[in-house]
């Protein structure tokens, strides 16, 4: 259901936030057992929040731009007094002593948080099968994955459990599940949304962003959560551009480049490539100047990412040592306790990445692996900069394939990693990108088309995304 519509109706007193919430809770009751979008449904807290919104409206106050909109939040964002698991046994039962900044902003905007959504453990994965609490299923076909790592958030919106959702995107963890579930998912410019209270995976890549049923709703949610936060030293201090008010400005004269390397990437399904080409010609029909562009180093993004992200993760996840929170498995001394706790608490993919990152950072290998990956990151940024001299936005697939069967890639980590080949380069560059549903591919499953823009290019990116959405089959 449209978030903009809900907020308008609730603010005007035409509908009550409580009634809107009950409709969503009823859908959760009906289908959550099959889908498993949530690690925790917060029905009581949501009812209290919705009643608070209704009371504010009755008192003549404005509850905010997301008044009464049911929203699902990825379970790697801290919620005070409410379990925050990151899909990991190592944090099971932990109740954070503070709220993430996005949580505070959502509440201040009048949104109603309906639950904490399932994810790959510590956001490491592309299918939500790495959750310690079991996989999330794709509402469009429950034999398929919802994508990942924010699979629960994507599925919650696709199944109508929430009108909006929040996820985090380190290498495509918002955009890829959005594409696989047939909803809109967007990664903002690095630093645009505060990471305070987002449990860190790879700090130079992580960014929080919206899931929604429409491009308009994604802009509405983005504008409610972004902006400078003194609690995050990497948060952008300058004022951010208006997005919602320019959405429908059209694409006349806009220069659109279709990234050759990502549209012809190895393993791409023909229907996915056709969708990108069809979206490009639709933009052309709407007045944009469309051409193909080579961004050669983007194909090295995957390799660079799978050194940089695990390296940062191996450092960030050192904090799970059994001392301050979560699980502890006793040992005869501190080192043995640390190692036993981490062995028991982390799942296979997290261990794999910690091992990979520790190796890439270890003496004698640091420069060849981590150092080289950082230099390739510079090459990718330079290639994007060159492309943006000629183009306002770039176009590519979001995922090379539609949603795959559960279990299809769990035995082969590298095959799973390839799911993110088109989304990773943006994270390395710190740029924004959005996935817009555009028709269907194999077996009638949704396909997402990705629009990329330079840093703080959200206005032009949203205009192109809106035009693609209007022309979607």
């Amino acid at each position: 259901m449209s978030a903009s519509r809900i907020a308008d109706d609730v603010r005007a007193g035409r509908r009550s936030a409580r009634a809107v919430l009950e409709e969503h809770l009823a859908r959760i009751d009906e289908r959550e057992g099959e889908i498993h979008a949530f690690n925790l449904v917060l029905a009581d807290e949501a009812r209290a929040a919705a009643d608070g919104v209704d009371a504010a409206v009755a008192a003549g106050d404005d509850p905010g731009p997301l008044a009464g909109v049911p929203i699902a939040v990825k379970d790697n964002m801290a919620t005070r007094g409410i379990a925050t698991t990151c899909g990991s046994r190592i944090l099971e039962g932990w109740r954070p002593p503070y709220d993430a900044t996005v949580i505070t902003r959502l509440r201040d905007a009048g949104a109603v948080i309906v639950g904490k959504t399932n994810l790959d453990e510590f956001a490491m994965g592309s299918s939500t099968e790495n959750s310690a609490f079991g996989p999330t299923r794709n509402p469009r076909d429950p034999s398929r994955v919802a994508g990942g790592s924010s699979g629960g958030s994507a599925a919650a919106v696709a199944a109508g459990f929430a009108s909006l959702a929040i996820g985090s995107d380190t290498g495509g963890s918002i955009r890829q599940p959005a594409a696989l579930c047939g909803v809109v998912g967007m990664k903002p410019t690095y630093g645009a949304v505060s990471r305070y209270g987002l449990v860190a995976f790879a700090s130079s890549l992580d960014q929080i962003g919206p899931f929604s049923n429409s491009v308009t709703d994604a802009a509405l949610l983005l504008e409610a959560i972004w902006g400078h936060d003194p609690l995050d030293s990497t948060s952008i201090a300058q004022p951010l551009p208006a997005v919602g008010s320019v959405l429908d400005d059209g694409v006349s004269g806009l220069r659109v480049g279709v990234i050759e390397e990502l549209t012809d990437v190895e393993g791409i399904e023909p229907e996915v490539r056709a969708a990108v080409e069809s979206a490009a010609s639709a933009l052309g029909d709407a007045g944009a100047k469309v051409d193909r562009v080579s961004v050669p180093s983007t194909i090295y993004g995957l390799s660079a990412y799978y050194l940089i992200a695990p390296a940062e993760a191996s450092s960030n996840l050192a904090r799970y040592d059994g001392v301050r929170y979560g699980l502890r498995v006793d040992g005869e001394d501190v080192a043995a306790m640390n190692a036993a706790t981490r062995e028991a608490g982390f799942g296979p993919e997290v261990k794999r990445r910690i091992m990979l990152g520790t190796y890439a950072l270890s003496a004698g290998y640091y420069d060849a692996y981590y150092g080289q990956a950082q230099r390739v990151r510079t090459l990718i940024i330079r290639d994007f900069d060159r492309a943006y001299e000629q183009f306002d936005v770039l176009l590519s697939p979001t995922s090379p394939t539609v949603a795959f069967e559960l279990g299809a890639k769990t035995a082969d980590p590298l095959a799973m990693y390839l799911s993110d080949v088109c989304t990773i380069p943006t994270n390395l560059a710190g740029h924004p990108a959005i996935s817009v549903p555009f028709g269907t591919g194999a077996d009638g499953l949704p396909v997402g088309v990705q629009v990329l823009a330079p840093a703080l290019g959200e206005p032009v990116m949203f205009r192109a995304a809106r035009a693609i959405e209007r022309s979607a089959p």
Partner: protein
Amino acid sequence: MHVAKLARLALTDEEIEAITPELAAILEHAEELSALDTHGVAPTAHPLPLVNVFRPDVPRPGVDRAEVLAAAPHAEDGRFRVPRILGDAP
């Protein structure tokens, strides 16, 4: 395994057996990076050109100590309790 020790992971023999070829395959894929000429290219550690971000030096409330300690596996007398850190004296 040395890396597991560095990472403070008490991996089982079965896990080490499974993870070794997986890591080898990932690193082999990453070898493609060594073919790129990065001579004279500066590394990027972070996408934003930030240096020394300061905030005003004013006191503000922090997180509640009791709440933090309540979340710890073992706490006593306002502190985290851990097993011994140093081994027996020789």
